[in-house]
């Protein structure tokens, strides 16, 4: 069954979505979208690194994503304007990554694969990495769920409850780095943040609790991955962008439905 590239693609999309959905809820709650961008764009630097040292792409991406995540996390402790710093990190990493890839790569390297994903060329080894990474992230989230929620609600509230919010934030950021590393093959560096944010945002109007939102986000992510894969097959469009377009379509649909339902209800 795994011999079929479409089956492998579907499994890759599902695996990445299951990890990205619940994690994306934290990104939305904590307004870390720009942070996600910074880590995701840093993935391109990771690609350059793996090309230069003949590492696997995911290993290189993971190393650089973790490094950038930790660096930005340290900087964020200061009193500097966070969005500006992250803007520098996100776009700087993207640009330097592109330059570095062009310097290290052989002629004719297809950049699009790294920017927009190449889910149709996922190998069994990739699949093992994606599902392994997704399992890691899910395990981290399950383990730290309550403390992370507490830290998300308020740092002082967390401290007083015996939860170290800095530690929880660090775990969250590491989980994001892992998601970036496993998703680069699926949707590419430019669209990873979309797979974090859009399913979570889609889940929000339907959820009354954080757990429900996390499950729904994973579900919407899976739906987008499978729907996008199918649509790109039918329409012969690039798969990564089609997956994200499917996610965005679901978002608009759910928004319209919940606005419609909200009309007849007291606020």
């Amino acid at each position, binding site marked *: 069954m795994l011999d079929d590239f479409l089956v492998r693609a579907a499994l890759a999309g599902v695996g990445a979505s299951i990890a990205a959905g619940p994690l994306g809820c934290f990104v*939305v*709650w*904590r*307004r870390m979208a720009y942070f996600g961008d910074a880590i995701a764009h840093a993935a391109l630097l990771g690609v350059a690194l793996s090309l230069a040292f003949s590492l696997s792409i995911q290993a290189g991406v993971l190393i650089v994503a973790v490094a950038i995540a930790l660096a930005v996390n340290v900087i964020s402790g200061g*009193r500097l304007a966070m969005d500006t710093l992250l803007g520098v990190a996100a776009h700087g990493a993207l640009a330097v990554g592109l330059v570095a890839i062009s310097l290290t790569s052989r002629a004719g390297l297809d950049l699009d694969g790294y920017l927009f994903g190449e889910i149709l060329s996922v190998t069994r080894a990739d699949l093992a990495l994606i599902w392994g990474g997704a399992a890691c992230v899910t395990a981290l989230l399950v383990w730290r769920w*309550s*403390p992370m*929620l*507490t830290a*998300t*609600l*308020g*740092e*002082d*509230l*967390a*401290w*007083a*409850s*015996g*939860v170290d919010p800095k530690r929880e934030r660090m775990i969250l950021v590491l989980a994001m780095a892992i998601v970036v590393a496993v998703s680069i093959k699926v949707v590419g560096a430019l669209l990873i943040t979309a797979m974090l944010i859009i399913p979570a*945002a889609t889940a*929000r109007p339907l*959820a*009354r*609790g*954080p757990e*429900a*939102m996390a499950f729904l986000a994973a579900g919407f992510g899976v739906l987008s991955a499978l729907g996008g894969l199918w649509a790109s097959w039918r329409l012969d469009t690039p798969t990564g962008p089609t997956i994200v377009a499917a996610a965005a379509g679901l978002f608009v649909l759910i928004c319209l439905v919940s606005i419609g339902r909200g009309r007849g209800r007291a606020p």
Partner: protein
Amino acid sequence: MSKQSFILPQDATDVLIGTENVSVALGGRQVLRDLTFGIRRGEIVTIVGPNGSGKSTFVRALIGAVPASRGRVRTRPGLAIGYVPQRLHIDPTFPITVARFLALPRRRGRAEIAEGLARVGLADHGRRQMTELSGGQFQRVLLARALLGRPDILILDEPTQSLDQPATAAFYRLIEEVRADLSCAVLMVSHDLHVVMSASDRVICVNGHICCEGTPTVVSEAPEYQALFGDGTRGALALYQHHHDHEHGQGGAPHA
């Protein structure tokens, strides 16, 4: 008067939480210097001070949210702290019911949650979204959450700052009720002295350091306190005591 504390941690065995010569610097600026303080089991202590005096920083140092640059914070092992923040902003993207909020970070049983909500007069509100609550209800839920852990000490950092006057008065009445119930210590930060002072065993006036401390009457008449708050607050204090008498129907002449 400045550095002397009524209880020194080394000779008070029943101190729940305290500081020894604690200084705190934030962003290179010294916010607190040389604070020695301790609160005993069952005591009610109010910390007052003008805006920017470091009162909130002091509380944050006590709960471990900011490190002391000098000195140390001493906590009795296993101390259960119930903390009510100034206010809590829950992002509108974060769906959470009152009941779920109460069970963070530690799981609580259904009965325990119901009891906790009933205690603050919010029975049947467990299924509501936190973001739907009024300001007064929200603070009550924060109080309920702080009380669920059966705290030895309740720490409240200007808990009524965002409330209007009736809600503030109701909130303070509630604190007095639950305190009578649970007999925990209370450490309250306030800048609206007129509401809390007379209920306190001790008032500590902070302005970067401890300016003065003592019973409410002693502090309100201390020159250090008057220098900080001016004449107006004496009128406010009188106003409160009048209110207090009125609310509870207790005797005693209003402070003039």
